[in-house]
């Protein structure tokens, strides 16, 4: 029985991490209807920022997430300004453009920092864990999960309870009408891309405390994040959270009880089932 709980909890941690990564994607998708293909590479860049801060200045990921968050906030805004703002609303253009961006960023990092994977030694959290009964709770994952909940909570509050949030919603629904209400939609887009970047930046900042950093690290994460956003219903923070936890649990349960190679088959399969029953996602409009 404790094994079962162990498996469940492992899934939970994984799920919450996915939620943290998916949140920014969901926001950008929901507001601008842009699927950011480079999302995984944003994550990777965040990890590099955190890694180098740790490597060069001995900063712990528990601190450097702030820096990666800010870095990715700026990076997101820059991406918006230079690329997305020029092609917003043009069918597939943003998707392909971000695909190009992904290719560029990934190979730029590879070219500059070599393809080596890098690990931070002796971070504060690394290797620590505590027990709840027979169940092991690894500290890095636990802390990341807390961050995920905090960031998602903050995002939710911001979107539903603040003027900024209303403006974001209005912009998402009809940009032109929002402008007629006095919303500076361009600023909203810029900020949304920035915040989306910051969310994934925070995730990237924390990850080096237990995951190796390398140019390809974002690939699978971004795929899972795409799926979570679609499953939750785009633009919906609670949707992203629920879907993420579901994915984490399925992954863990299928991985353990059916077999590790089946875990993504199960995850993607169940995603398809969910989306076919609810074509706009669990919490979608």
């Amino acid at each position, binding site marked *: 029985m404790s094994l079962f709980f162990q498996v469940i909890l492992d899934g939970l941690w994984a799920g919450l991490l996915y939620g943290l990564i998916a949140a920014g994607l969901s926001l950008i998708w929901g507001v601008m209807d842009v699927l950011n293909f480079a999302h995984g590479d944003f994550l990777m860049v965040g990890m590099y920022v955190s890694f180098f801060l740790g490597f060069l200045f001995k900063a712990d990921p528990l601190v450097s997430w702030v820096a990666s968050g800010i870095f990715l906030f700026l990076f997101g805004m820059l991406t918006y300004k230079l690329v997305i703002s020029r092609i917003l609303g043009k069918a597939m253009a943003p998707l392909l453009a971000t695909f190009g961006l992904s290719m560029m960023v990934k190979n730029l990092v590879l070219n500059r920092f070599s393809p080596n994977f890098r690990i931070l030694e002796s971070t504060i959290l690394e290797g620590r864990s505590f027990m709840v009964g027979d169940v092991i709770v690894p500290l890095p994952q636990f802390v990341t999960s807390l961050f995920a909940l905090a960031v998602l909570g903050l995002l939710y509050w911001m979107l539903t309870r603040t003027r900024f949030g*209303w403006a974001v919603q209005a912009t998402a*629904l009809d940009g*032109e*009408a929002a402008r*007629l*209400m*006095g919303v*500076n*939609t361009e600023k909203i887009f810029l900020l949304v891309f920035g915040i989306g970047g910051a969310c994934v930046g925070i995730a990237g900042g924390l990850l080096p405390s237990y995951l190796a950093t390398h140019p390809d690290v974002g690939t699978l994460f971004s795929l899972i994040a795409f799926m979570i956003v679609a499953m939750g219903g785009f633009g919906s923070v609670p949707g992203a959270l629920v879907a993420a936890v579901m994915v984490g649990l399925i992954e863990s349960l299928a991985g353990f009880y059916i077999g590790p190679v089946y875990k993504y088959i199960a995850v993607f399969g169940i995603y398809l089932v969910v989306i076919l029953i609810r074509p706009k996602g669990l919490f979608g409009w």
Partner: protein
Amino acid sequence: MSGEILLEVKDIRCGYDGVPVIHGVSLEVRSGEIVAIIGANGAGKSTTMRTIAGLMHPLSGVIRFDGADITRTPAYSIVARGLAYVPEARRLFSKLSVRQNLEMGAFTVKDRGEIAARLDRAFQLFPVLKERAGQIAETMSGGEQQMCAIARGLMSNPKLIMLDELSLGLQPSIVEKVLETVVEIRNQGITVLLVEQLVQEALEISDRGYVIQTGAIVHQGTASELLASPEVRKAYMGM
């Protein structure tokens, strides 16, 4: 009747995708007036209004509002200056409730008390909206949506409100009511610029009117002059 000039449009030209559709439109609206723009389909009425509202910028020409040049001012700050635009096809926030739509109308206002007061006023004007306050805008019928759009425009407490195709899709009794509302709005001190296909009805409540044809003003005058003009009657009133 004729206060100082509130809105002045001087010889604007604009177009879509490089194709010019407005070739030099000039008009003015004095505060306290109701001014109607009439014209056939595709004459450029909506384009003119969109340009004034800042959704697009003219290739040449000048637009002044309330003493300031707003030719290149972005739409969102034009609202703040007191010029509201109710676009054709309503453009409600489809997934938000009626109440949320109305609240968005007062986005430039930060004081919650003030917003509540304006909301009350809107509900008085359109009691249906009060009943439906919680309904999601896109599930309302066309007419209900139109009312919501007008009410939303008024939420910003504008000095001038531009109404595009006010009566489109409204039932006769409501058209009547809406037109009465326009007069009422004016009586409350809000200047009105409207585009309307029900030419007769529109001119009956207006002070002055402009007739626009393929992107240029071809007639202008007081409402009664236009109503009496045989050309206008023939071209736009089917008589």
